[in-house]
């Protein structure tokens, strides 16, 4: 189905062990040319290990990594057509910004003329909006600026694939958002394949066109951001990507679940047999909150906490037999009489399409 020529990176049954520790197990992954793929997963799930095997800093214990259709076994990092933006940038402290960015170009054979190098370095610095910073020392740059130097240093070599290991982790939220947009724009303009490692699910969803969710050294889902969010492959993905309420219950018939509290909740049709014990994952925005007095139906509960988020409000609602549920309400949809207060009795109405059903 996938021929080698359209995939920039391919993992074929790759397992990596460090002594007794198995970091990743049987990874199969194909990254198409020009794609923006995010490797997403909790700490220690093997994201960096995967990236380092592409970069050539680690060798798979089993299986094979291919870049552009060519097997990479035994090929050292300096012969691979990929560049990496390291988690902590790894900029050379004894060079200025310009020399850092020029480093890769100076290694190229046949040699590139000095004038050409400085032209390309200048262009790369312009691209990351650091024109005029060339003569600065690395320790004279802020975190965000260093991050952009690291980016320029990698991109100036025009790699086939750019590997980014949590490049934005050290930045504050505002700068991170700005850099996310910048990275996305750059990726589209340059057409380079990006593989981004992150444990920030928002970042993964917002930036990439495919998300590879990993858990405990394995890939659990590889799909578009929408699909990962709307149709999580299992309860782990549902939990990890976005906020989720976990409920347990038993399937009554094709499209209703008897919750542990005794309440009946509608779900989408499933192929599971009635009577199956289930775990339900319900997105907070798939629950509608109504003031108890006005609504009929739904499940009764009491507001315990309210977190005001600006454009939306998050409620924690205690429901007897189910525990605390998280409910998100958009501001516009709120009734004119405003927000519910802690202590208010409310009714929760579930949207069947927002509930995901997994066998327990």
């Amino acid at each position, binding site marked *: 189905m996938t021929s080698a020529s359209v995939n920039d990176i391919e993992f074929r049954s790759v397992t990596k062990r460090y002594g007794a520790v198995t970091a990743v197990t049987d990874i199969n992954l194909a990254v198409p040319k020009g794609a923006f793929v995010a490797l997403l997963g909790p700490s220690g799930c093997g994201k960096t290990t995967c990236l380092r095997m592409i*970069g*050539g*800093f680690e060798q798979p214990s089993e299986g094979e990594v291919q870049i552009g259709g060519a097997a990479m076994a035994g090929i*050292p*990092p*300096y012969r691979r057509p*990929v*560049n*990496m933006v*390291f988690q*902590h*940038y*790894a*900029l*050379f*402290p*004894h060079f200025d910004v310009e020399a850092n960015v020029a*480093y*890769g170009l100076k*290694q*190229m054979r046949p040699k590139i003329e000095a004038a050409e190098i400085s032209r390309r370095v200048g262009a790369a610095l312009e691209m990351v909006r650091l024109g005029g910073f060339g003569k600065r*020392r*690395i*320790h004279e740059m802020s975190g965000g600026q260093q991050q952009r130097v690291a980016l320029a*240093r*990698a991109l100036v*070599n025009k790699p086939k694939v750019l590997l980014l290991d949590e490049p934005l982790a*050290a930045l504050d939220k505002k700068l991170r958002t700005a850099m996310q947009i910048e990275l996305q724009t750059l990726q589209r303009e340059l057409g380079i394949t990006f593989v981004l490692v992150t444990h920030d699910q928002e970042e993964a969803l917002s930036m990439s066109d495919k998300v590879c969710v990993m858990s405990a050294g394995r890939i659990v889902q590889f799909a578009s951001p929408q699909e990962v969010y709307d149709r999580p492959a299992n309860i782990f993905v549902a939990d990890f990507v976005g906020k989720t309420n976990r409920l347990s219950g038993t399937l009554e018939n094709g499209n209703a679940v008897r919750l542990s509290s005794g309440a009946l909740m509608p779900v989408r049709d499933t192929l599971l047999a009635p009577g199956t014990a289930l775990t339900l994952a319900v997105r907070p925005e798939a629950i509608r909150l109504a003031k108890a007095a006005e609504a009929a139906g739904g499940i009764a509960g009491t507001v315990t906490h309210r977190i005001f988020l600006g454009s939306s409000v998050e409620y924690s609602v205690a429901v007897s037999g189910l525990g605390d549920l998280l409910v998100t309400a958009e501001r516009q949809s709120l009734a004119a009489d405003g927000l519910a207060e802690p202590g208010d009795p409310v009714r929760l109405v579930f949207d069947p399409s927002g509930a995901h059903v997994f066998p327990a």
Partner: protein
Amino acid sequence: MPLAPATKRNLVTSALVAPAAAWLFVFLVLPFIAILVFAFGERAPEGGYQAAFTFAQFANLGSRAAAFRNTMMIAPVGAFLCLIVAYPVAYFLAVKASPKYRLVLVSLVVVPFWTSLLVRTYAWMYILGSRGLPNLLDMVGISDVRMLNTPGAVLLGIVYGYLPLMIMPIYVSLEKLDLRLLEASADLGAKPLSTFFGITLPLSLPGVMTGTALVTILLLGEYLIPQLLGGGKVFFIGNALVDLFLQSRNWPFGSAIAVTLVAVVVLVLLVAMRIAWRFAGTRQVDLV
């Protein structure tokens, strides 16, 4: 009247520093002043010092040119040889050795210090002497090889004796080296040799400079190794000094040589620090 806390702190500091300061004053500053005074004096007829003010001792330095020449040639060359041998060892310890064994291996480097340098150099004297290696070579038909009392023997003794002092500072600076920088260099297409000369070596220069300066300075005053392995043939300023103070009892001339030596050491130190500082200024690793 109770003392103000600041005054009290100053008193404590003074009390702590005082013994060392007194020690340095009595055993370093005073003798140095004495040497300085002696250097402009004259040799008493029966030996020792006789008050005078003359530059004659300095004018006479040329008569010990061989000692100066040997010292000024062999000390830097010896330090350089030490560096060449020490760097790979330090690199291995800091970068390649498994962290599990690193501490053990590093302590092995200083194990030789458990035995006195004198004893160890004596061993070399025997090994290089006519009953040692040359004797063995003789048995396989290579005769008349002289090893002892050559510059080569002195250099060998120097590298042997001073290696740990060179390894340590280089090890320390290599150990601080962020290995991700080496990966980044490889990632950017640099072959191992380019990475070494472009990244590793420049970032370990402070250690290299410290080690080289340390060993060179100590070697400028070396006495034991040239005495034992150089015989009467390869002698250093240190040997000339012992000779002048203890044998011919020409204290003023010895003092003039000593003063000159100190001046050279200070000069070497200043130049080395200049260079080290230049690089140290760029070494502020600020990665996170």
